């Protein structure tokens, strides 16, 4: 079976992946959404017409009210500005948490998959332990105890999201370590860690990126859920936090919930579709012909 030449990562391979990605219309749509969100987050201070924390006597102004395109909330804060600033927290938590999860996942998966033996057993039991913990419940408890600063949120979500990546990376390593190019490396006297991270890792990264992009979506959702339950950082404007305030006023001011809700939907959808596109790009068997 595995007599094929070692896959190499080079310009041609990346180019082929990009070509396949472009053919996936949902992937391209996801990429555009993600790019726009990133742009919004980076340019928030320029784009937002008001400071998101700035209150006023003009509470509950409906959308299209003069000066407030998406209306104002219960404290007279501009909803549009809050939605724009909210994208920062969502994306920052999403990306940083997914990066944390990927880092841990790759490390654990690579060590378990390549070294094998009792070490593999041990790491996989730990992984399973983290996998069966109800993430949301544990996140609630941790945030309730240690506070809900941005760094805490990122660490909590990141530390609870890595098992899937770890298992995926482990399976990649299990199949790659029997391939001829790995044998060749070993025969050349390369050190274990060089083989693991410089030889195998680049070849195993495709599926990892797919999972990472889905992790971003999951992390955004988890952050929003924590915020919705009032456990976000009240010093930062976040979509989940806006929803938390809005639930009390849902019948009086629908715009307080609809717009941050739309932001969350868009971000989660964007990263999911982007992930779909990546799947098609790195797994030609799934790509449309």
């Amino acid at each position: 079976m595995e007599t094929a030449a070692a896959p190499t990562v080079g310009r041609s391979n990346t180019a082929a992946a990009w070509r396949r990605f472009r053919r996936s219309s949902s992937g391209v749509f996801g990429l555009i959404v993600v790019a726009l969100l990133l742009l919004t987050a980076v340019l928030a201070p320029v784009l937002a017409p008001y400071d998101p924390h700035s209150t006023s006597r003009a509470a509950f102004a409906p959308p299209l009210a003069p000066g407030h395109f998406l209306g104002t909330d219960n404290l007279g804060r501009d909803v549009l500005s809050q939605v724009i600033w909210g994208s920062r927290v969502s994306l920052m938590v999403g990306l940083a948490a997914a990066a944390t999860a990927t880092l841990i996942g790759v490390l654990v998966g690579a060590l378990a998959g390549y070294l094998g033996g009792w070490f593999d057993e041990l790491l996989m039991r730990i992984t399973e332990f983290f996998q069966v913990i109800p993430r949301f419940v544990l996140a609630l408890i941790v945030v309730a105890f240690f506070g809900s600063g941005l760094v805490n949120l990122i660490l909590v979500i990141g530390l609870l999201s890595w098992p899937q990546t770890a298992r995926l990376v482990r399976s990649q390593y299990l199949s790659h370590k029997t391939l001829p190019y790995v044998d060749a490396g070993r025969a050349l006297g390369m050190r274990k860690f060089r083989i693991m991270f410089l030889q195998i890792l680049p070849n195993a990264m495709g599926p990892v990126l797919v999972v990472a992009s889905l992790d971003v979506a999951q992390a955004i959702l988890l952050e929003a859920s924590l915020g919705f339950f009032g456990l976000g950082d009240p010093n930062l404007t976040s979509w989940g936090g806006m929803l938390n305030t809005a639930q009390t006023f849902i019948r009086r001011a629908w715009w307080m919930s609809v717009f941050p809700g739309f932001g969350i939907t868009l971000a989660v959808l964007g990263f999911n579709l982007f992930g779909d596109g990546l799947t098609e790009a790195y797994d030609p068997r799934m790509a449309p012909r």
Partner: protein
Amino acid sequence: MIDSSQGDTAPLRASSLVKGRFQMTWSTVKRALFVFAALLLAVPAAAQETPVKGGTAIVILGSDPEHLNVGISTSYPTAAVGANIYSGLVRSRADGRPEGDLASSWTVSDDNLTYTFTLRQANFHDGTPVTSADVVYSMLQIEAPNHGRFKTAYDQIASIEAPDAQTVVITLKAPYAPLLSLLTVFDAPVLPKHVFEGTDPLTNPANDAPIGSGPFKFANWVRGERVEIVRNDDYFLEEALLDKIIFRIVPQDVARSTAIEVGEADLLWGFYMPPADLPRLESDPNVNTWTGITIPALYFVFINTNTPGLDDARVRQAIMYAVDREQVVDQAQGGLGQAGSGPFGGGFAYAYDESTDFRTRYPYDPEKAKALLAEAGVSGLQLRFVYDSARGAFAAAGDIMRDQLRQVGIDLVLQPAERAVMVDRVYSGDYDLTMQSFTSGGDPTIGYHRIYRSAAPGTPFVNATGYSNPDIDAWLDQAGGLADQDARAEYYGKINEVLANDVPVMVMFDELASEASSGNLRGMRTLLDQRDGLEFLWFAPR
């Protein structure tokens, strides 16, 4: 008679509202008009109605009681259930007038030092008669060591004695005006001595399945879900009209008002009311609503005078000028309040001074605040605002304060914390600003003196600001010992003058109480505390 000082407080409170001594916000006025109109419509109808017996009412609680023993806790849900299971010596009618509960009558000696109570013939729910020994045991062994407010009263008491089975004599160290209002079921419930004797009252199993002598008997408690109490057919006063009351625990704000709207529950008190939902409930033809003043509750922002910067009175004054308390009332409290008027609020006429009214003395004036900060040489101040994360109004007030303090160059960092953590932090001094709400029964002595009197850090719910002024301490003691209100007013005047200048505490607002109930529920608020007197509830036939 004995209790003129007590009876007076409530009418004064009510009239103070009507005379417009408060600057009413438009929403308050609208609400008042609405209530007035509702009264006009309701009175003739109510007059024709005669109470009928039977039925089950569902009352909403926002959180599960920790236990049901009112004698060892001032917790709101504990007292809501417990007050209807236990009895006190006296109870307060809705107008603040005290009347006999377990005591059929009482006399007061001419020197105002000795109160002699005569008990009624009454039985506990297990059939044992209630005697003076139970009263003395409850007060000395259970409430004096464990009950936050009764402890305060006990400091003024020289002895509590039972000369015979039906008589209780309380002797004071010095005249103490609020004594009677501290002998209700909320502060000094009469617990069965035979159940508690020889046990630790904090861990006695009867705390979870109480045996009292009140109008209802404990029936069932499903933790986190509901507590059920049933009519006591052997009650010594008016027998309860309802067969049963179910206290349903509904932790979600929104779910509470919805439960009333869809008829799943019958009674929702202001303590658990999401202020934002009140206008909607008011417009619902199937729901009756009420707003007004019962037990005055004050919302304070404590300023930690040990924080560098905040030790300067000018900086604290700057904070007073920088925060628009009217906006906090309107937006964070949904209009259900009146911007704070003084250290003891507007509820006690003798403790209020027009000349030091915070609203005229410290109007919203960011420029003045900046000038004061500059004068004090303080800049770049960063302050932590610690509050109970479960209180939505505190969070909203924090959002407003953060915005307004930023205008004058103070950076406010919001730090919500779970209640137990918050209490621990605030009362050990680990905060800069914090928002707290206090009630004070029928007298400022009961709840508010502790906020201003010098105290060592570490005791929950007493002075947390680190502010200490021997003059204030002495005046508070003198004002608390006098029965004559004019004499008390003199001391409160001095206190108000000093505190208005030193402002260790920003009084945010006086809360207006509210209530929503299903359209055919009657008999609410017969007694002063909304939670008390549920035996008067009944359903009008539809």
